[in-house]
């Protein structure tokens, strides 16, 4: 990492720390959204960007995490700081089953992606019909205005902002360490050529399993945060393919497999989304926001297929050429 990049990151972090004092309610809500997508994108990036396994069912881990923690809180009064560990356990277990089946039966690419979609859909149907989680009617957390209760993660946007900021910074640091570790090198080898990696003695199955488990664990944390921030959960949205797909956009647009990618992608996509929402409201045509969004995706993927961050970083001279 170059000194310039390090200095830039320090300034960015300092700005983010004081942001709630500078921004109004709307600005803060957008920033929260950006950080959420950066965090969950970083989690997805571990599996696809580092280890090369395409998952289009990550909503499963977020939904499962959210439901477990919210259910424990609603039914037994167990707070999210404890519940998150149960949530992680559940998501990692689900990820292990899917990963083991997929990798053991050597499904790759689209076939593996379809397997992840199938499991997410299955879970959605299960939760639709499970009364403990409120069924298709949804699960709701009690909202008390003006109460800040750190132990149960109840409070206003500022509280959730700092939590998601800490999570995003933590994920960023974790991924930085992972990429430099032996495991990270193994992942890259598997991503580039799994057979060659196997041939030179990389424990391919174990490494892929670790990628799924770490990715699922982080995604579950995002799900818990999400459930407590929005105070409601519906199987129809929590496990939907749309939710899974939206997690993949930031890292792909920002730069798959790069550390900065998910953050840059989240900034660009969330800002564009907000811009198009206001344009859409002004034009008052149904679907116009999504049309602009689709056009933006199309243009970026056509002209910057490797993502925005590698291009920006090269322009600013932030990264040494490999």
């Amino acid at each position, binding site marked *: 990492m170059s000194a310039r990049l390090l200095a830039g990151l320090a300034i960015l972090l300092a700005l983010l720390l004081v942001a709630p004092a500078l921004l109004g309610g709307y600005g803060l809500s957008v920033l929260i959204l950006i950080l959420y997508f950066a965090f969950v994108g970083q989690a997805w990036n571990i599996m696809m960007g580092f280890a090369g396994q395409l998952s289009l069912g990550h909503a499963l881990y977020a939904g499962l995490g959210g439901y477990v923690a919210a259910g424990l809180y609603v039914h037994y009064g167990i707070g999210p700081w404890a519940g998150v560990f149960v949530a992680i356990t559940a998501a990692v277990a689900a990820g292990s089953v899917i990963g083991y089946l997929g990798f053991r039966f050597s499904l790759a690419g689209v076939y593996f992606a379809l397997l992840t979609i*199938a499991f997410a859909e299955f879970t959605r149907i299960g939760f639709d019909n499970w009364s403990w989680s409120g069924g298709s009617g949804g699960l709701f957390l009690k909202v008390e205005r003006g109460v800040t209760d750190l132990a149960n993660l109840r409070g206003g946007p500022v509280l959730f902002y700092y939590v998601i900021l800490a999570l995003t910074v933590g994920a960023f640091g974790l991924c930085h360490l992972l990429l430099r570790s032996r495991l990270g090198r193994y992942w890259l080898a598997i991503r580039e050529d799994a057979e060659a990696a196997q041939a030179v003695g990389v424990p391919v199955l174990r490494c892929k399993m670790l990628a799924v488990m770490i990715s699922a664990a982080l995604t579950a944390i995002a799900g818990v945060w999400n459930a407590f921030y929005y105070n409601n959960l519906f199987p129809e949205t929590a496990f939907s393919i749309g939710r899974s797909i939206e997690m993949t*956009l930031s890292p792909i647009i920002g730069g*798959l497999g790069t550390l900065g990618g998910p953050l840059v992608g989240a900034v660009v996509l969330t800002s564009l989304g907000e811009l198009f929402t206001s344009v859409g409201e002004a034009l008052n045509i*149904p679907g116009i926001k999504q*049309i602009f969004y689709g056009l933006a*995706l*199309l243009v970026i*993927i056509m002209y910057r*297929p490797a993502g925005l961050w590698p291009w920006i970083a090269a322009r600013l001279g932030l990264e040494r050429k490999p």
Partner: protein
Amino acid sequence: MTADFLLALSQAITKGLLTGMVYGLMALGLSVIFGVMRVVNFAHGEMMMIGMYLAWAAFDALQISPMLSLPLIALLFFGAGYLLQRSLIQPFINRPEHQQFLLLLAVATLIANGCLAIAGPDSRTIQLDSQFDSYELGPLVLDAVRVHAAVVALLIAALLWLFFTHTRTGKAIRAAADNHMGALVVGLDVRRLYAVTFGIGAACVGAAGALMITVIPVTPFLAGDYTLLAFVIVIVGGLGSMTGALLGGLLIGVSEAVAGLLGDPALKSMFSFGLLIVVLLLRPQGLLGRKEQR
């Protein structure tokens, strides 16, 4: 089990078989595209939705029956598919899967919301004269509309089979699918063949849309479900296997109708995704697919 239930069950199964033919035709388009150029058309359901809207518009404005507008829609789709492949998709043929996925996701978003912007969120349906006609087959009563749709779907599938087995272009496309390098070596214009293939796949799904509107109303929101459905059908039946796609369509059609009979629509999804998981794990080449070296 009473005789009444058995009759209702066989009634549901025949209904499912008829609808399943149309599903099969839709999936056939996906199978042809993926089987030949290895590109996953994530906008497949959205493309079918355009076919449904076009057939609806022709009927609504000009009282042209979908069976008559179908050839025109298929032709239009062939041209549009050809151009789409040449302009957008060809540059992505050798790119990683996630980039192709995002490209077609963007196309799907544009189509779905374009339809929403133009046609609005209401569900659209057509009332054909033959709506309440039926054929009787022993104790079974078959909706005329579904029978017609199934027959036409089968006819188109047969035409497609003739094309791939008896015409020069069809054989060349199969050659390019079997061995890309070999096709280049013997001097086939693979780029053109790919564009033709995408055109054919689009024509199939456009035609399927024109048939589908006779049995199901169209809204801009269901397209994603149909994309997924087409995937399940194609994987279950076997990628690149034409009979596989039709068989997959029939299976899904029947499971849907039986789930409807039992009063729990979730059963259909349970069945189709359960089947998908089992097939992916135990028989990734699909029920009727050939084993290939991946």
